[in-house]
C-alpha cells in the first residue's frame, strides 16, 4: 500500500472528477449543462470539455446569461446553492423553459458543494422542486497546484469582511473536516484572527458532532479517523483580516505579477492575443469563446519551466528565461551535431516532444514577461511601488500624501489608489481624521459620487478608517487587539529587510523586494522558529547559530508578535483516546519522525506571493538537517486574492445615468 499523504492534490482532483461524472452518468442521454460563471474555470481545471461531451453534455450555458435553450430534453444545472439569488435564478430559468418550450424537459440540479435547506425552500416556493431531481456535487477543495488547495469561493472576501456572512467559514470547516475524517485530526490548531478563531471553534465543534453522529455500523475507519493524525503536524489558520497590507501591496514574484497584470482565475489567465501570438488555442474551453481578441492561457504549475519561474522575484525572471533559452538551444543543437550513432539519434528524437513543449512554454513566458516589463516600467507603477515601499519600511506616511494626491490627479485606476490609501490605513491603525476626509473628498471628486458607497464599504471592511476606530472621534486610543500595530512588529518580526537578495533569496522578504509578509512571518514563528529567531536577532557568535537562540523557545516569537496583531489568538490541541492512538500508531508503523504535513489555511484568500514565500519556507524545511525534518507545507485557502480584488469587492460599479 502506498503511504497515505494527507491533502493529496491528485486524489482530491480525481475524487471530484469521479463524483461529477457519476452524477452526469446518472442522467440518461444528451443534456444541456447550465453552470455558474464562477464555476466554469474550476470545472475546466477538473474535467476536460471533451470528457464532458463523452458523458453526454451537448452545450454549456451560463446561468447569468439566462439563455439555455430547449435543444435537449435533459437540462442540468451546476450551481453553488449557498446564495438565495442564484437559487432564484435557477428556479426562474426552469420556469421560463417550462413555459416556452414545447418538449417536456427533465431538469436536474447539482448543487455545489451541498444541497441546502434554503434552496429546497426557495425551489418549493417557486413550485419547481417537484420537477427537478436534485443532487449534490461535494466539491470543496480544488487543487490549483500540488501544494495549493483552494475552495474557490470567489465571494469569500466580500462575504466575510463586508457582509460579515460566515458561510465561507462553515464551508472551510466542512472541507477541513472531510480531510480530518480521512487522515485523522489535526493534532494542533493554532492561528490568528477572529474569523480564524471561529473556524477553529467550528472544527472542534464538528468533531464532537461527527463522533455523535457516527453512523451505526461504521465502526472501523471513522473511529480511527477521529484520533490525532500521525501524518499531519498542525493546522495554522490565518485570518486575512490579520494581514490586509500584504494583499494590498503589489506582488513582485513572477506569478504574482502575472496575477496583478492579467489576473489569474483557476490557473488560467486571459491575455491579449497579440501578446502570446500564435500559441495553440486550447480546444474544448468550457464556456463560449469570447469574441474579443483575448486568449486564455493556462498557467500550469506542472510546467517545468514555469515551476522555476513562478516563485522567483520578477527582477531575475529575465535572467532565468535567458538561461533556459540558452540551455534549450545548446541541448537541441549540440545533440543534433553529436548524434552520431542511431541509438543516440533515437534518444534525441524521443526527447524532442519535451523540447517542443519547453520551447512553447519558453515562448509564452518570454512574451508574458515582456508585457509585464512594460507594465512595471510605467511611471505610475514605479511611483505607487515607491509609496508602498516607503510605507512598509516605516517612513512617516504623511510624506507620501503628496505622491498619492498626484496619482489621483493623474486619474490612475481607482483600485491602485485605494490600495495605497488602504495600505496606509491598515499599517498605521487608520488615517488621521483630516487626511482621511481630504482623500475621501479627492476620491469622490476624481472618480465620482458613487464611490461614497465604495468608501463606506472599505470602512466596513476595516480597510480604510479614521485613526482610533470608526467611532465619534472621542474614543481614546484603540484597544489592544483591535488594530495591528506595525511599529513594534517591524522590529520583533523583522518585517522590513533592507538587505534583500532577490537573486539568491535568503529570506521570504524577496517576494516583495524588502517586505516580509506578516502572515508568513506568523507561520514562520510557529514552524521555523530557529531560523526566524536568527533573522530577527542574529547571534553574536556565528558558530552559536546552530545552538538554541533564546527567542526560539516555545512559541515566544509567536506570542510576542501576536500581542500587537489584530484579532484573537488561539492554540488548541486535539487529543484522542489513548487506545485509538496506539492502534493507529501500530497500523502506521513507526514512521513518527518522518515527514509530516503542515497545513496553512488562509481564511479570506491567499496571494500568490504568499504562496511563493511559504514554498520558500517549505523548501528550507525539507533541507536535510533543517529544523522541519522534511515537513511538507500545504496551503489551503477559501480563494485566491489580489489587491485589486480585495478593494474591488468594495468598489461600487453603478453610476448615475441620464
Amino acid at each position, binding site marked *: 500500500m502506498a503511504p497515505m499523504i494527507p491533502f493529496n492534490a491528485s486524489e482530491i482532483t480525481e475524487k471530484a472528477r469521479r463524483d461529477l461524472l457519476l452524477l452526469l452518468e446518472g442522467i440518461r442521454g444528451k443534456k444541456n449543462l447550465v453552470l455558474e460563471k464562477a464555476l466554469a474555470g474550476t470545472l475546466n481545471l477538473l474535467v476536460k470539455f471533451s470528457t464532458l461531451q463523452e458523458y453526454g453534455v451537448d452545450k454549456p450555458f451560463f446561468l447569468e446569461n439566462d439563455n439555455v435553450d430547449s435543444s435537449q430534453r435533459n437540462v442540468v444545472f451546476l450551481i453553488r446553492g449557498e446564495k438565495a439569488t442564484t437559487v432564484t435564478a435557477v428556479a426562474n430559468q426552469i420556469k421560463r423553459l417550462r413555459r416556452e418550450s414545447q418538449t417536456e424537459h427533465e431538469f436536474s440540479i447539482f448543487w455545489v458543494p451541498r444541497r441546502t435547506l434554503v434552496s429546497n425552500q426557495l425551489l418549493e416556493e417557486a413550485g419547481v422542486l417537484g420537477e427537478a431531481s436534485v443532487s449534490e456535487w461535494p466539491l470543496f477543495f480544488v487543487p490549483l497546484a500540488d501544494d495549493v488547495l483552494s475552495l474557490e469561493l470567489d465571494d469569500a472576501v466580500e462575504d466575510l469582511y463586508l457582509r460579515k456572512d460566515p458561510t465561507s467559514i462553515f464551508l472551510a470547516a466542512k472541507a477541513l473536516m472531510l480531510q480530518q475524517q480521512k487522515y485523522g485530526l489535526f493534532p494542533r490548531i493554532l492561528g490568528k484572527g477572529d474569523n480564524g478563531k471561529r473556524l477553529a471553534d*467550528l472544527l472542534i*465543534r464538528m468533531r464532537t458532532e461527527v*463522533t455523535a*453522529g457516527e453512523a451505526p455500523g461504521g465502526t472501523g475507519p471513522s473511529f480511527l479517523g477521529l484520533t490525532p493524525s500521525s501524518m499531519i503536524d498542525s493546522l495554522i489558520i490565518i485570518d486575512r483580516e490579520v494581514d490586509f497590507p500584504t494583499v494590498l501591496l503589489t506582488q513582485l514574484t513572477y506569478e504574482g505579477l502575472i496575477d496583478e497584470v492579467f489576473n489569474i482565475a483557476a490557473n488560467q489567465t486571459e491575455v491579449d492575443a497579440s501578446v502570446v501570438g500564435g500559441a495553440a488555442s486550447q480546444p474544448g474551453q468550457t464556456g463560449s469563446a469570447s469574441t474579443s481578441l483575448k486568449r486564455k492561457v493556462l498557467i500550469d504549475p506542472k510546467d517545468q519551466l514555469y515551476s522555476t519561474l513562478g516563485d522567483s522575484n520578477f527582477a531575475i525572471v529575465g535572467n532565468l528565461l535567458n538561461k533556459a533559452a540558452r540551455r534549450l538551444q545548446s541541448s537541441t543543437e549540440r545533440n543534433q551535431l553529436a548524434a552520431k550513432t542511431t541509438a543516440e539519434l533515437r534518444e534525441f528524437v524521443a526527447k524532442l516532444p519535451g523540447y517542443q513543449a519547453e520551447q512553447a512554454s519558453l515562448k509564452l513566458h518570454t512574451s508574458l514577461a515582456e508585457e509585464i516589463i512594460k507594465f512595471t516600467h510605467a511611471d505610475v507603477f514605479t511611483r505607487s511601488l515607491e509609496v508602498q515601499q516607503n510605507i512598509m519600511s516605516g517612513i512617516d506616511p504623511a510624506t507620501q500624501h503628496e505622491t498619492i494626491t498626484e496619482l489621483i490627479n493623474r486619474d490612475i485606476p481607482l483600485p491602485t489608489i485605494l490600495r495605497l490609501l488602504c495600505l496606509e490605513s491598515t499599517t498605521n491603525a487608520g488615517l488621521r481624521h483630516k487626511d482621511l476626509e481630504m482623500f475621501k473628498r479627492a476620491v469622490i471628486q476624481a472618480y465620482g459620487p*458613487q464611490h461614497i458607497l465604495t468608501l*463606506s464599504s472599505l470602512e466596513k471592511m476595516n480597510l480604510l478608517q479614521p485613526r482610533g476606530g470608526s467611532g465619534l472621534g472621542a474614543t481614546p486610543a484603540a484597544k489592544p487587539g483591535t488594530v495591528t500595530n506595525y511599529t513594534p512588529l517591524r522590529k520583533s518580526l523583522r518585517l522590513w529587510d533592507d538587505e534583500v537578495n532577490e537573486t539568491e533569496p535568503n529570506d521570504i522578504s524577496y517576494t516583495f523586494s524588502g517586505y516580509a509578509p506578516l502572515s508568513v512571518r506568523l507561520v514562520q514563528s510557529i514552524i521555523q522558529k530557529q531560523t526566524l529567531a536568527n533573522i530577527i536577532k542574529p547571534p553574536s557568535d556565528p558558530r552559536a547559530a546552530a545552538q538554541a537562540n533564546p527567542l526560539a523557545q516555545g512559541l515566544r516569537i509567536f506570542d510576542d508578535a501576536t500581542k500587537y496583531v489584530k484579532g484573537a489568538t488561539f492554540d488548541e490541541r486535539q487529543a484522542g483516546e489513548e487506545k485509538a492512538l496506539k492502534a493507529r500508531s501500530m497500523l502506521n508503523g513507526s514512521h513518527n519522525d518522518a515527514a509530516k504535513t503542515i497545513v496553512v489555511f488562509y481564511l479570506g484568500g491567499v496571494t500568490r506571493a504568499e504562496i511563493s514565500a511559504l514554498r520558500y519556507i517549505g523548501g528550507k524545511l525539507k533541507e536535510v538537517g533543517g529544523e522541519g525534518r522534511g515537513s511538507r507545507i500545504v496551503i489551503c485557502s477559501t480563494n485566491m486574492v489580489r489587491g485589486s480584488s480585495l478593494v474591488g469587492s468594495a468598489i461600487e460599479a453603478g453610476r448615475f445615468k441620464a
Partner: protein
Amino acid sequence: MSKPTANWEKLGDKFYRKIQLYTAVFDQDLELENYHVVGAPYSGAVAIYRDENKIIAYRGAQANKASIDIYSCAGKLIRRLNWEKGTIKGLGWSEDEELLVVTEDGTVRCYYDLQGDFVPFSLGHGAEEHLVQSCRFYGSGFVALLGNNNLISVTSYSEPRPKLLAIPPSDPIISWSIIPPAYSLSRSVEVILAIGKTLYVVDATEAEDRNFDAGPFRHISVSPRGEFLAFYTDDGKVWVVSGDWSDKLSEYDSKVKTVPKDMQWCGSNAVALAWEDEVHLIGPRSAATKFYYDAWIHLLPDVDGLRLLTNDVCEYLQKVPDDTVDVFRLGSDSPAANLLEASSLLDQKSPKADDLIQLIRPNLAEAVDTCIKAAAHEFNIHWQKALLRAASFGKSVLDLYSSDDFVDTCDTLRVLNAVRFYEIGLPLSYDQYRRLTPEKLVERLTNRNEYLLALRVASYLQLPTSHIHSHWAQQKVRVSTDTEEDICSLIVKKLHGKPGISFEEIAHAAYDEGRVRLATELLNYEPRAGKQVPLLLNMKEENIALDKAIESGDTDLVFHVLLHLRKKLPLASFFRVINSRPVATALVESSALDQDRELLKDLYYQDDRRLDGSNLLLTEALGQSSLTQSLDKLKLASKYLSDSRDSPAQFQRQALDDASKLLRLQEQFEKDLGPRDNAPIASTSSSFIGLSAHQTIFELLRQGHTKRAQKVQSEFKIADKTYTWLKLRALVNARHWNELEEMAKAKKSPIGWEPFFNEVLAAGNTRVASVFVPKCTHLDVKERVDMWSKCGLLVKAGEEAFRAKDRGLLEEVRGKASGSAAVELERLIGMLPAGRR
C-alpha cells in the same frame, strides 16, 4: 437424551425433521380456526386477526373488540393493535418485520416497529371503487388484487409508489400467487392467476395466457426462491412445475376429495398440504408423508422450512441438512459420524476412541467441518454440545486446522440459543440467521424491547449499540410515567457521551408524545446543533432554533430559520429577534440587499443606522434610470442624515449634496453643449451626466469650455494643482498644443513643469515637450540632459551639459549622437577646459 433422529421422517430418499419449538403456545380458548394467521419471515412475529366470515362464540363486549394481535412464535403477546379501521383484506410482513395491513378501501398501513406506530399510504388506481380483494406479500413489497381483477404492485415501503400491472381478463380468479422480483425471470414482480381452467402470468407490461387446461387450480404456491411452482388441481392432484415453466416435474395425487385449506412450500424441496388437522408433505417423485394433529393447523412458510402452528405447539418442519444427515443417519459410517462416536467413547474413557480416530484419520478435517456445521443446524442444545465437543476433539488431533469456523459457530449458537428461549421466541434456524444478518437480529430484539439481550448480543458480536440505546430512550419517553426530570436524568445518565446517540431523535419522540418540556431538555444534550433546528422549529421555539442554528455555524440553517421567522413574525418583532444576533442581522442584510430593499430600509430605520440607510438610498439613486428620480433619491439620502451631528454623517451629507450639485451642473452643461462627440471614456454613455467632478472638468477643458470648467473648479473647491493636472491632461488628450505652449509662458505652474514635459512627451510631441525642459529649473543637470535627449535634441542636451561643465555627461551624449549633432557636440567637448585637468 432422545435420539436426534427421533423426529425424522423419510420422504423419498430425503429426511425431513419436525422440531418442536414451543409448547402451550396459545390460550386454549383462542379458536385458532377462526383466525387468519401470518408469520413474519425468518421466524419473526405472528400476527393473527379474527376472520370476519366465521361465526364466533360471543364472549362479552370486551373480547369481541376487533384487534390484530402480534405474538412471538412462543405465543407471547407482543402487541395488540385495536382495529376499527375497516375490513382487512391483506395482512403481511416485510422482511424487516414491518406489519402491513391493507384494508378494503386500498389504504395500506405499514407498522414499522412492533409498537403500533404506522405510516399510511393509499394504493390508488381505483382501489377505493373496486375494493381490494386480497393481497400477496414478499420480502420488500406486495401485490393487491382489486375487485375488477386489476393488480397493484408496491415494491418499496419506504417510498411506496403503487403501480398498476397489466390488466388480466376479468373472469373470476380462483387462486393466485406471485413470484418476487428477486427470483422472477424479468426481475420484476410476476403474478400467477388461475382463471377458469388456465393460468395467466401478469407483469408490468402484459398478461400472458399459459394455455393450461388441467384447471381450475385451487391453490398456487411458489417455492421460496421461485425455482418451482406448485398447483393444486380441482381433482386433488399436486403439480410441480419448474420456475421457468419448462418442465412439469412431478404430479401427486392426494386422493382426497376436500380441497386443502392451504398449500405451502417447505423449503424448496417439498410441498405441504394442510387440511384442518392433517398435513401432507409431498417430496420429489410424488413421495409423501402425513402428519396428524389434534387441533386446527396453520402453515407459516419460511425460507428454509415451514412453521406449523396450533394452539398447543409451534413446530418447525424442514429438510434435514446434509451435514446433519451425515452425522446422525442410522448406520452412517461417514467420518463425521465416527468422529462423534469417538468423542462419546472418549467421554466414556474407552480406548476405542483412538482406534476410531485412526480409522478416519485421512478424512478427519472434513469430519470436523461436518460436525461443526451439523452443530450449527442443530436445535437441541445437548446435541449441539456433543457435536462441538466431537469437533473440538477431532481438531485437537489435527496438526493444522483453522479454528475460525469453530469459534464462529460457538458464538452463533450462543446467540441463537439465547433468542430461541421461549421468553424471546425467535426460533431462528442457522440458515435464517445467516440470511437475516446479526444486525437485523439485534434490530428485531430492540423492536421487541428486549434491550438487555440486544445489548448483550451486540456487544458479544461487536456490533454498534447506539441504535439500541436510542430506541430504549425513545421508548422510555413514550411510556414512562416517572416525572420528566427523572426520565431526563436517567436517559442522560445512561446515554450521554456514547457515540452515535441522537438526542434529537429521542427529543422528537418526546415531542410527539406531547412532552414538550422534556423534549426541550433532551434537545440540549444533542451535540449537533444543526440537528436540533428542525425540531425546535416544529416546537415553535424559533428563538432557540435561531440560536442553535447560529451556534452550528451553518449559515444555511440560520437562513432557513430566518426565512421561517420572517414569514411568521410581524416585522417589528422580527427585527427584535435578529437585533441581538449579529450573524443573523448580517445575513438578513446581505440577502435583503439583493432581494428586498424595503426590508433593509425598515431595518436601518429601526436600528437608527443613518449612514447605512443613506447609503442604501444612494444605491437606489444609482439604480434609477432618469436623472430627476436619481436627484430625488439623493435628496432623500441627504435628508436621512439631517438629524445626525457626528462628523461621518456630516461628511456624507456634504458629499451627497455635492453629488446633487454636480448632477445639476452636468444637466446644465448637457443642455448647453449638447451631446458630446467622441467621448474619451469609451463604453460609457456619451454624456456629462454620471461623470465625476474631475472628469467633468477634464471633458469641459477638452472641448475648450474653460469658463465652465473654472466654474466647476470653484464650485467644488478643487485645488489649483489638481486643476492644472486636469488641464494638462485634457489639452494633451485633445492635442491642443498651442494652448500648451501658451501655458508654458506662465511663470509658475502649481505642479511644476516636469509633468508637462512627461505628458506631452508621452503623447509623442517632442517639439512641445522640449519647450518645458528649460523651465524645469529645480532639476539637476543630468536629468535635464536626459530630458533633452528624450526629445531627440542632443545638441541642446550637450549645451546643457556644457553649461554645467560636466565633461562626463557631455561625452555620454556624444556617444548617442551622429551626423551634424555629433560634430557640434565634438566642438562643445573641445571647448570644455575641464577635461584636461
